[in-house]
């Protein structure tokens, strides 16, 4: 019985990374004026400190920031706008991109 319990716990730990991606949400933020890495790093910095944000990817050429939100966490336009404005930019658009 003890061996089965340990095995189940081990299985749970090993499977945790797979669960982590389950239910996460992805949003695409349109941001004007992403001129250079200094801008990109600023956006990553402010959005990365928002509760629930797992990952921030900046596409400078398209002027798009892709934000991945952890499962169960909230993220809305106002939160995105505040973070983008804190980095010195304006939020042009906000849309869910995909659900995993």
């Amino acid at each position, binding site marked *: 019985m003890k061996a089965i319990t340990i095995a189940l716990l081990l299985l749970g730990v090993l499977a945790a990374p797979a669960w982590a991606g389950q239910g996460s949400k992805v949003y695409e933020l349109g941001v004007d004026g992403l*001129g*250079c*890495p*200094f801008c990109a*790093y*600023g956006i990553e*910095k402010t959005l990365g400190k928002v509760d629930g944000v797992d990952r921030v990817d900046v596409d400078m050429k398209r002027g798009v920031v892709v934000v991945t939100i952890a499962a169960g966490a909230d993220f809305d336009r106002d939160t995105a706008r505040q973070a983008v404005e804190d*980095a*010195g930019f304006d939020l042009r658009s906000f849309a869910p991109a995909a659900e995993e």
Partner: protein
Amino acid sequence: MRRRVVFRSLVVLVLVFAGLIAAAWLAFVPWPKEPSYVFIAAWGGPGSDPGRFNDPTGIALAGGELFVSDSRNARIQVFDRDGNFKRAFGIKGEGAGQLGRPMNLTVFGGELYVADYWNDRIEVFALDGTHRRTIGRKGSGPGEFNAPGGVAVAPNGDLFVADFHNQRVQQLRPDGSFVRQWGTTRERGSAAGMFNYPTDVALGPDGTLYVADGYNDRIQAFSPDGAFLDKWGGPFAINVHGPFQGWFATVTGLAVDRAGHVFVADFYNNRVQKFAPDGTFLTAFGEPGDGAGQFDHPIAVAVGDDDTVFVADYGNNRILAWRPPGG
């Protein structure tokens, strides 16, 4: 008769317009006064292995060694001047001596000064990578930073820091205590002495402070006593960007050689421009691409005592070396 008048009027208009364009060209687009530099070598490439980069964003020289901010890898890499990897230091984090996004660098007194954009501070290391001290913290008050982009150090040890999001340049004592600032905290502007996201700073041999005024697409110069001296980059240096010689399209880094020449990383124009200490355009080198002598957005520049110029080629994740013609 009427047709002839209209035709003559049109001709006059075209001539006046052409004359204005020619006058503007002569007034605002300088000719090179020196030949261009010669490409020597390139090294690097994308990745996280030793000698490869994930966003090189800063570069500095100390004797025979070249220090590079490898920003997304949160480390400093050290090379010899031929591009051979020697060592790396720094790990990602927020603790003392750890790095977030290291940007422009400077070396002074046997120490490496790192502007850490994410951790809002200046980290100081011995050249072997041993952490020495931390200067500053997050904020907008005196001696505080919001995303420092570059740092310079005067002979007396005073620091000059491009405080990117605070829209100012601060002068601090070696212990981090505040001396003075240029620009108005958190206020952007294009008038003389105001900034629009300053990215880097450098000091001339005479003590002149040069500021890469990033999104104003210009360089500003201040005398050792703090007075505004000059600005250049586009017509009247008032935030007009363009591809012409002497103009900029986002300035992200600069360096001054021992003779006082100012080298500017002209990010979106994919070139480095060289100026006399008074801002006179001298020459430019580089073009867009990923081949020999080409840039994909040069972001930082350093000049050796032998006049070799090293450039961090951000988009190509590599370093390029150039020399003056005949050098």
